[in-house]
């Protein structure tokens, strides 16, 4: 069965669209919390696809990707909150957020051009932490980020008078805040997916893959590896910046805590677990790793109460346990990810595994 062809057929597109439209209403029957979880799932799809450009296509192991997300989130928070008394509109902030994150990407990329693999991972990891610590401490001497307390009362996304927070009636249907964000995020995610697919099958995308496969050979056939690596960092970072901005508006609150190393690792895990460099795989990875822990969180507590009559294991610690186990199992039995690209799949079958 060819999933790729299914999604491209008219029927496939129709069914997928109907499903995507119905999803927030189905989720809402379980409470708005589930719609919010959906929102985050799509936000992570967005992030994972951005990281996929850097890790999956260009093969640059980036463990500090969350830093760009943070840059975007704080850009929005500072330009649209009472903190500085600024309330800029979305069409001004998002380009700035993308631009600043892009700049941060180049800033991280330029000194690390000669590094590969583990060494690059260590530097990017450090970079991610530096950004977080900066955010934590930039409340003195001039209060820029408000330190560990974070920034509150951030403006929601709005187009003119249409706000994405609170419930509104559209065509007689009541849409809650999270449901409106859901549609915004789906629209953005589709855009990012299209950009990703187009990039992957372009001259630039092929050059990135060539660098990933063999940098020396890539140089020898005339690819300017320096510029293309910087471009990969910049592109991935801008996606992170935009996602950060939306996150900030959606939450109404940001603090440095949201941008820990663990978040970077989670996004990387989404890319790797789903199938590095394969867009549907990355989407699957992002959705699974966002939704499953929540299912666990909401399911395990009541389940334990029902079976044992008391809480034996804290759902939060169980979550990390299951997550670790899942990672190990996937890497053992599906080393190319849950949904690898067809070429990779074929190759694994050919080598007898």
């Amino acid at each position, binding site marked *: 069965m060819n999933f790729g062809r299914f999604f491209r057929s008219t029927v496939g597109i129709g069914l997928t669209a109907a499903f995507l439209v119905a999803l927030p209403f189905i989720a809402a029957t379980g409470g708005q919390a589930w719609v919010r979880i959906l929102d985050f799932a799509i936000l992570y799809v967005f992030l994972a696809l951005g990281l996929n450009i850097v890790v999956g296509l260009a093969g640059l192991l980036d463990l500090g990707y969350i830093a760009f997300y943070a840059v975007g989130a704080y850009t929005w928070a500072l330009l649209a909150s009472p903190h500085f008394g600024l309330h800029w509109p979305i069409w001004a902030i998002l380009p700035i957020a993308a631009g600043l994150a892009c700049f941060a990407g180049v800033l991280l990329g330029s000194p690390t051009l000669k590094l590969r693999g583990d060494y690059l991972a260590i530097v990017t990891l450090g970079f991610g932490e530096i950004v977080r610590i900066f955010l934590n401490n930039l409340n003195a001497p001039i209060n820029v980020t408000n330190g560990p307390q974070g920034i509150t009362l951030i403006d929601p996304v709005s187009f003119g008078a249409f706000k994405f927070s609170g419930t509104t009636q559209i065509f007689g249907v009541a849409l809650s805040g999270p449901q409106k964000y859901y549609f915004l995020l789906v629209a953005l995610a589709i855009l990012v997916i299209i950009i990703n697919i187009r990039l992957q099958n372009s001259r630039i995308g092929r050059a990135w893959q060539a660098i990933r496969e063999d940098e020396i050979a890539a140089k020898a056939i*005339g690819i*300017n590896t320096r510029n293309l690596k910087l471009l990969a960092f910049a592109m991935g970072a801008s996606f992170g910046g935009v996602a950060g901005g939306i996150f900030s508006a959606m939450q109404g609150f940001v603090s440095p805590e949201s941008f820990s190393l663990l978040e970077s690792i989670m996004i990387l895990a989404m890319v790797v677990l789903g199938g590095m460099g394969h867009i549907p795989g990355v989407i699957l990875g992002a959705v699974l790793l966002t939704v499953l822990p929540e299912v666990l969180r909401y399911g395990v507590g009541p389940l334990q109460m029902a079976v044992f009559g008391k809480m034996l294991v804290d759902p939060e610690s169980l979550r990390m346990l299951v997550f670790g186990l899942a990672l190990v199992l996937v890497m053992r039995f599906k080393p190319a990810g849950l949904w690898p690209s067809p070429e990779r799949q074929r190759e694994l079958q050919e080598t007898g595994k």
Partner: protein
Amino acid sequence: MSANLPEPLLEAKAVAKHFGGVKALRDVSLSINHGEIYGLIGPNGAGKTTFFNCMTGLYVPDGGGFTFAGAPLIADAPDKAAARGIARTFQNIRLFGNMTALENVMVGRHVRTKAGVLGAMFQNPATKAEEAAIRQKAIDLLHYVRIEERADDLARNLSYGDQRRLEIARALATEPKLLCLDEPAAGMNATETEQLRELIDGIRCDGTTILLIEHDVKLVMGLCDRVAVLDYGALVIEDVPAVVQKDQRVIEAYLGA
């Protein structure tokens, strides 16, 4: 070929390279003319590949330099060398293993095309046309080296001989003036070597100058217009095959004095 003293395509002037105390190249000077097949031979460790790497910009020579098509080559800039028209293959094949054969050749078109990120995102007509041209050219090149039926296979799954051919196709995709082949016949049997000989001869007939590093002396002597012999990093002789074959120093270098 040298009827009216053609201007050389590539000229190496006193190229020197050392790794610590090892003098890999000692003031090697040679010149390659337009349209010829130029052989570079020598025992293992004579400095052939080092010479290649200096020329294609992977190494920075410690002395001397190269002039290519009338202008000096910048050291340490392999991508610029490729843009100028020097393409190479590698002694130990370096393909993009997880990309298909077709994609490998398509990457080779990179230096001769120019679509950027915005073009890819918006798919404007110019980008689409360029993409179609890249694909067509790549298919043609796979035909040319006769591995078109492997186009959609991952490069790493190709047979050894086909990988060699694919590497040549990828190099040709950059539209080189000078194609440098680093031991293309290594590990090939007699039939494969003969097919390779025909391929190389064909490439030359289509107007590409070829620099060939090879161990297979029979192949080199039968194919090359001129041959240079390196030994311990120094040029021993540069002449037509018939003269080189009889040269006492060459025989000594190969058989030991």
